């Protein structure tokens, strides 16, 4: 088979992060090449470089042997490289055909009028080549997600794409739709199109991939044939990094009291019957791939989003949590993965951000704020958590990510929350500040607070958690003891089949006892 794409020694840095380091990848005509790796391994960055969204800092890209510079998505399209994004980028009010030919509509009447007839005919032709029964005049919003994806594929093909990049194409599809998609992929393969397939789902690789390339920490680990390589080998390649080890191993929570008990939490397909317990002084890690439903569970417990069903018991008392204020009053604090959007009032100063959840406590007669008490509280936490800021009047947006995170932690400590939910506590934080945050988490647990830590970084989960809850597609697929291996976690995190889902409650009880 002829080589379509060769990417060599690709480097890419973002402010503060080296996203890619000498990454390489190649694609042959008529193959499905799966690209795998943990969240943040560099897969998406590499593909965004290939599709012209990012510019590379270094390295070479060859297309059928010719060196090319892919400077923009339009250039990538012209070169025959199409990308189907995870979040579909279609205009819902336009028809399928209008979406496919947006900006390139066939014209008539001296180029002044749109030629809808030809537009629909051309789109119909592409659909026919995909054996797809779809009326090109259907508005996209009336199509299922799966069908919308087909429209995206048709759009890419309309550019005569020889390279098709698919980013988690099956994430939102049901089994029948996945089969339909795979049939189309097979047809494209037969026509010599090279397909780059980004996925976390092991079972799919075995079904459609010819080769697998695994990335880790911005570099390419290896490229292996899909048929002869075991899933365990691939997982080992994905997680096999030397573990970063800066913080003390956390002390196990003994037979401490159960602080929080969540049972039967449910909302649509995002949260499917999640149950677990959390003990005093315990750090319960939540592992899983992106979109597994961990943040959804956290926000549901906190009352930020509604739930259909589920019981939350705190210290033996059943809680009714409808709004965040109910959770906060009960002593549950939530630290969002997106601090700037959900955690901080970035335009306000450190003092006010620390006081934000406890402001009523500082209000005297007539709502007059006791600024000196607020300052004292802010200064106390600035000292205690070593928040690096010129003063408590510094605007929060001017602090570094790590210090912003500490400000949010201070907010909940001041509020004296007993249960703290950390969602990706070290995202966007540099390495030095990370270990400080780790130490803080361990200290908080030692003080007797109960902590839920959601993290997509396995080493983080493994080092800090007393127990590890693993989620996949809205289900809690298992709870592992703290010393679990990465392979065990990855297996639970990719365990898709509903029938192998163990009774989450039972799993919870058994591992809760052994932890």
């Amino acid at each position, binding site marked *: 088979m002829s080589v379509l794409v060769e990417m060599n020694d690709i480097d890419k840095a973002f402010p503060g992060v080296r996203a890619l380091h000498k990454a390489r990848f190649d694609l042959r005509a008529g193959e499905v090449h799966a690209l795998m790796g943990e969240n943040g391994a560099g897969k998406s960055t590499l593909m965004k470089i290939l599709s012209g969204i990012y510019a590379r800092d270094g390295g070479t890209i060859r297309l059928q042997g010719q060196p090319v510079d892919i400077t923009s998505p339009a250039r990538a399209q012209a070169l025959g490289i199409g990308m189907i994004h995870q979040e579909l980028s279609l205009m819902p009010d336009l028809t399928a055909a209008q979406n496919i030919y947006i900006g390139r509509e066939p014209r008539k009447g001296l180029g002044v009028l749109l030629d809808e007839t030809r537009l629909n005919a051309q789109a119909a032709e592409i659909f026919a080549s995909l054996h797809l029964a779809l009326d090109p005049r259907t508005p996209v919003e009336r199509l299922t997600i799966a069908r919308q994806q087909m429209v995206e594929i048709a759009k890419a093909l309309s550019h005569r794409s020889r390279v098709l990049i698919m980013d988690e194409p099956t994430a939102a599809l049901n089994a029948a739709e996945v089969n339909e998609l795979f049939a189309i992929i097979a047809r494209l393969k037969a026509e010599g199109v090279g397909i780059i397939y980004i996925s976390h789902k092991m079972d799919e690789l075995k079904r459609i991939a010819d080769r697998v390339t695994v990335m880790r920490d911005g570099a390419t680990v290896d490229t292996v044939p899909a048929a002869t390589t075991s899933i365990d080998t691939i997982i080992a390649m994905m997680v096999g990094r030397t573990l970063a080890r800066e913080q003390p191993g956390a002390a196990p929570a003994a037979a401490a009291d159960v602080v929080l008990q969540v049972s039967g939490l449910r909302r649509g397909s995002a949260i499917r019957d999640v149950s677990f317990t959390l003990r005093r002084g315990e750090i319960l890690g939540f592992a899983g791939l992106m979109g597994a439903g961990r943040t959804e569970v956290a926000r549901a417990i906190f009352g930020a989003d509604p739930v259909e069903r589920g019981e939350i018991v705190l210290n033996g008392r059943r809680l009714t949590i409808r709004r*965040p*204020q109910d959770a906060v009053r009960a002593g549950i604090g939530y630290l969002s993965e997106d601090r700037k959007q959900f955690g901080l009032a970035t335009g*306000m100063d450190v003092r006010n951000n620390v006081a934000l*959840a406890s402001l009523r406590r500082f209000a005297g007669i007539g709502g007059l*704020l006791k600024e000196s008490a607020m300052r004292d509280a802010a200064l106390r936490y600035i000292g205690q958590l070593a928040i690096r800021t010129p003063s408590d009047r510094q605007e929060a947006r001017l602090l570094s990510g790590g210090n912003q995170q500490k400000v949010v932690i201070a907010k909940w400590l001041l509020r004296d929350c007993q249960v703290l939910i950390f969602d990706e506590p070290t995202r966007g934080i540099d390495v030095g500040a990370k270990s400080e945050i780790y130490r803080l988490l361990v200290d908080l647990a030692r003080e007797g607070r109960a902590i839920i830590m959601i993290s997509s970084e396995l080493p983080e989960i493994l080092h800090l958690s007393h127990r590890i809850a693993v989620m996949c597609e809205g289900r809690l697929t298992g709870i592992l003891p703290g010393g679990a291996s990465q392979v065990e976690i990855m297996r639970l995190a990719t365990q898709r089949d509903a029938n192998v889902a163990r009774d989450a409650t039972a799993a919870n009880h058994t591992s809760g006892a052994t932890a």
Partner: protein
Amino acid sequence: MSVATSKPSLLPGMRLSGARHRLLAFTSLVALIVIFSLTAPDFLSTANVIAILQSTSVNGVLAIAATLVIITGGIDLSVGTLMTFCAVIAGVVLTYWGLPLGAGVLAAIAAGAVVGLTSGTCVAKLKIPPFIATLGMMLVLKGLALVISGTRPIYFNDTPDFAEIAQGSLIGMVLPDVPIPNGVLILFLVALVASFILQRTILGRFTFALGSNEEAVRLSGVNTDRWKMAVYALAGGICGIAGLLIASRLNSAQPALGQGYELDAIAAVVIGGTSLSGGRGTIIGTLIGALIMSVLAFGLRLLSVPQEWQFVVTGAIIILAVYIDILRRGRS
């Protein structure tokens, strides 16, 4: 005179951010005053200065109400017709029902607060965008003012003290040379109180916090709906004061008046450096903004610039002020 009172450092809790913009607005005001006093000799006469201040009072108070709502990230288009509605309520209570002055004053302010609370409920609980909620309220109030008054002005001839609210001069009784009318005094009083609430109280802090990042405030366990409703109610009460001021100056409640005032008020807020995207703003800036608008109007009139051109100049200044705000944000 007014310029001295509005020196920024005199008000409590100055925030550093936006200080440059306010300084610019303040400098513009001084520059305008200097230019007009050089070109129009009568400009700095006591009578003219008092007239400028008096004409600022209604727009200034309305602009203060608008400032509060705008800092939360909202907008209030109903301030103008709410002012008229409150004036009509005062007219009903004082002239139709013949109740004492105090009752009329309280009724006007209470009516404003209740209407503000209603708008706030629409925004906070029903999640109607502030622009739409207050646009609807603007029309509702315009209609109600006409209905309640029977589309006729209500005169306050039976309550002679009513005219004193805006037109009398407590200062003039002490210092006969500077008969600054009470309306101006009320404007500065409202400004002081509003500034105090914004800078020193929990309501003020949440006003800024809501505009800065409402979701973060909600996720901090704060009842954001309630605080937002409180801000709209406070703004409504302040509109009630504006209603008393304008009715007192005209010695009548004019039910057809009011629409258009909201845009002048918003213009003053914007010129004063309050960001329409919320989270930032000051009362002192709004006060300067309102003064700039009146100084411009009076100065251009003294220079015999036709009124049509005054619109052009004011409009250009609004656009310029917002552009400066964008530049400031871009830099930070």
